């Protein structure tokens, strides 16, 4: 034992306790000083909103989320001619045909406080500047999901890679894809708003509605060129105006190279869909603790954040955080924002926020509630940031009628020739190297008066063994009936559907076949399987389980019997191919 160890132990074992009286005496003077200090303090004028972003590393990181989020605001137009001299289809033509474009975007209401984002678009690239940011610029390449931010003032450049960015191979093509997708949707309507005066000129308006997006488009009545688009997606509102098309831009304006003489700050990654409820809550805590002096923000919408950046002035510097801590804080704020920006990917309906004026720690006050996707109950976040599950009837406030949970999807007939559904495959690994596959296919749409459902199995050599029709999308399936089927080719079958029964909510079909693990490619320790649905689907998943006598055991986190191997949430266009994945199983040790 070192000579000092005994002394060290004595110090460690020493205990000094204080009563409230002693605490009061020792702290009183400091508290008095603090109060004097507070009285002396005068309010600092708020600086220009975007200047703050560019002068603070912390807020710059947070604002990067704002820029990124703004980058993802797509225009969703609906083509459907309506009775007017100009039609909706006509006024969207310049947008569809333009090779370049230039416009201003405002997030939230146009009241003069919101920052104006100016975009120049060429192909998949956007050159973005924001009012008040001087010459600082972000070049966004949607094709490679990457952003280059350039600070002219500091002669610095920084790359941000975006993970989880929805497919936008080309900005203009993205618009066209959206149009095609929406045209195919049976839920689409366009309302003619007629002629109106706007900024001294006559414009014609159209209101296009879809369950996921609402767009008001105003076009010059004389030229037919769009002049203003107001878009609502979820709870985010954007305005696009001052639009110009086919502007002859210099390509160098869209270069993703770090300009000569600028230092590169390296590359960070932003997972756009990776934000969880925990991330959102952590952001609430930070916004209350750091930026709200203990109180939650007035709002949590993207526009609220954009507006509140002004109050963040100097706080990053005041905290005296290290570069690493600043980065950590910035990442947390990004995730917090992304939860709201991509809320519709993870949740149903709308969120409700009631945190304005609530102090962090108020355990009895609900501040935010929402319903996660595929959940029948709501998550309610309280002022001390604990979370409880609540049934709709127990929510802090009644929901709007149109926000009540929709019933489970039922089967609908449409005018198109194909079936569309959603599917989860359950792979149970059995002894002797076999896997029993049960595919739960929930049919959502199908052609009128068709009694045959054509399906293609992923492995032609694994014959279809049985087909059941049941009532619930996930196991256990009840009220089942056997369905007859006929082989029509290698791995293809026609299943006879009882159309009258499908029209009720009994729309889940279970198909079973067996696959030999030897028929799967074995790569880097994984049995690789095709991810292929039986019909075009809007979501697809694959789960694995292991029989105790199979000689295999699950890898990673299991949920009961099953381990998720693959999960693809809602896709815009139904499809059957989802690539390949390794089965999360390993030889039992």
């Amino acid at each position, binding site marked *: 034992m070192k000579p000092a160890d005994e002394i060290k132990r*004595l110090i460690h074992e020493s205990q000094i306790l*204080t009563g409230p009286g002693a605490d009061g005496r020792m702290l009183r003077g*400091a508290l008095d000083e603090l109060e004097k200090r507070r009285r002396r303090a005068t309010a600092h004028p708020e600086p220009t909103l975007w200047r703050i972003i560019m002068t603070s590393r912390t807020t710059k990181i947070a604002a990067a989320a704002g820029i990124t989020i703004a980058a993802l605001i797509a225009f969703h137009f609906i083509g459907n001619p309506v009775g007017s001299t100009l039609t909706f289809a006509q006024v969207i033509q310049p947008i569809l045909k333009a090779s370049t474009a230039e416009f201003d975007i405002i997030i939230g209401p146009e009241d003069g406080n919101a920052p104006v984002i100016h975009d120049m678009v060429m192909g998949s690239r956007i050159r973005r500047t924001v009012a008040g940011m001087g010459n600082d610029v972000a070049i966004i390449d949607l094709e490679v999901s990457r952003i280059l931010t350039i600070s002219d003032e500091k002669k610095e450049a920084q790359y941000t890679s975006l993970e989880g960015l929805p497919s936008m191979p080309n900005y203009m093509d993205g618009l066209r894809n959206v149009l095609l997708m929406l045209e195919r949707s049976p839920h689409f309507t366009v309302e003619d708003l007629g002629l109106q005066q706007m900024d001294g000129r006559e414009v014609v308006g159209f209101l296009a509605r879809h369950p996921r997006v609402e767009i008001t488009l105003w076009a010059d009545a004389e030229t037919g060129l769009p002049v203003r688009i107001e878009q609502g997606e979820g709870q985010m509102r954007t305005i696009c105006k001052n639009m110009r098309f086919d502007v002859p831009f210099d390509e160098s304006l869209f270069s993703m190279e770090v300009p000569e003489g600028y230092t590169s700050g390296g590359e960070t990654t932003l997972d756009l869909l990776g934000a969880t409820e925990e991330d959102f809550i952590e952001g609430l805590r930070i916004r209350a603790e750091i930026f709200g002096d203990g109180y939650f923000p007035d709002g949590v919408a993207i526009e609220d954040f954009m507006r509140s950046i002004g109050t963040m002035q100097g706080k990053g510097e005041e905290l005296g955080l290290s570069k690493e801590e600043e980065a950590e804080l910035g990442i947390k704020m990004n995730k917090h924002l992304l939860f709201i920006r991509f809320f519709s990917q993870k949740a149903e309906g709308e969120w409700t926020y009631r945190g304005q004026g609530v102090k962090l720690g108020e355990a009895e006050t609900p501040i935010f509630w929402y319903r996660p996707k595929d959940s029948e109950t709501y998550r309610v976040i309280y002022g001390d940031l604990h979370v409880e599950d609540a049934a709709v009837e127990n929510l802090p406030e009644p929901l709007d009628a149109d926000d009540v949970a929709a019933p489970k999807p039922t089967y609908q007939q449409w005018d198109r020739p194909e079936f569309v559904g959603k599917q989860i495959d359950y792979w149970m690994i059995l002894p002797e190297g076999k896997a029993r596959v049960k595919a739960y296919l929930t049919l959502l749409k199908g052609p009128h008066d068709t009694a045959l459902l054509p399906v293609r199995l992923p492995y032609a050599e694994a014959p279809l063994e049985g087909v059941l029709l049941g009532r619930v999308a996930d196991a256990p399936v009840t009220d089942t009936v056997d369905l007859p089927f006929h082989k029509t080719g290698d791995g293809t079958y026609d299943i006879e559907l009882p159309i009258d029964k499908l029209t009720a909510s009994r729309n889940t079909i279970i198909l079973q076949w067996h696959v030999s693990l030897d028929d799967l490619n074995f790569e880097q320790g994984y049995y690789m399987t095709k991810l292929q649905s039986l019909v075009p689907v809007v979501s697809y998943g694959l789960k694995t389980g292991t029989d105790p006598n199979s000689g295999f055991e699950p890898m990673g986190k299991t949920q009961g019997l099953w381990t998720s191997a693959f999960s693809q949430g809602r896709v815009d266009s139904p499809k059957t191919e989802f690539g390949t994945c390794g089965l999360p199983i390993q030889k039992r040790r």
Partner: protein
Amino acid sequence: MEDKLLVYRCKRGSPEALARIYRKYKADLLLLAMALLNDRSACEDVVHDVFVSFVRGLDDFRLTGSLKGFLLTCTANHARNWNKSERRRGRMGADADEGKPAWADSPVEAVACNEQVRRLSGAMAELPFEQREVVMMHLQGSMTFTAIATARQISPNTAKSRYRYGIDRLRLLLNGEVAR
């Protein structure tokens, strides 16, 4: 990060944050003060003064290291000043707690020390103040000799030798006791 946030909130005038810092570190500061001064009333005064000066200096304060280390150094400084002034008044002595107010031993009001504190501070009182400081800053505050030397404006070798002498003397004074 928590300490930086607490300091930040103090700068914004949050009494809750100041109280949190106090609760978090008061035991460490009191123990250091007790080891250096062997006087409970004096400990209270020193910790009181440490927090007052901490708040007064918030405008220019920027936390670069650990908040605990900073507050311990402040405590050592204030204890040193107290020690000097009391020495001038001739008040220092083994019975430094004599004459304390009647409320001092009330469980609600007092700063209560366990036997180990009494043993430690009793032995420390036999050391020159400079040695007490270095021993406690190194062993309790986990400060390096270089850091102590910088804080005390002495050479690292002086800090080391003060520490060595202090430890040797403490071992003699506490011979057998610390091993119990």
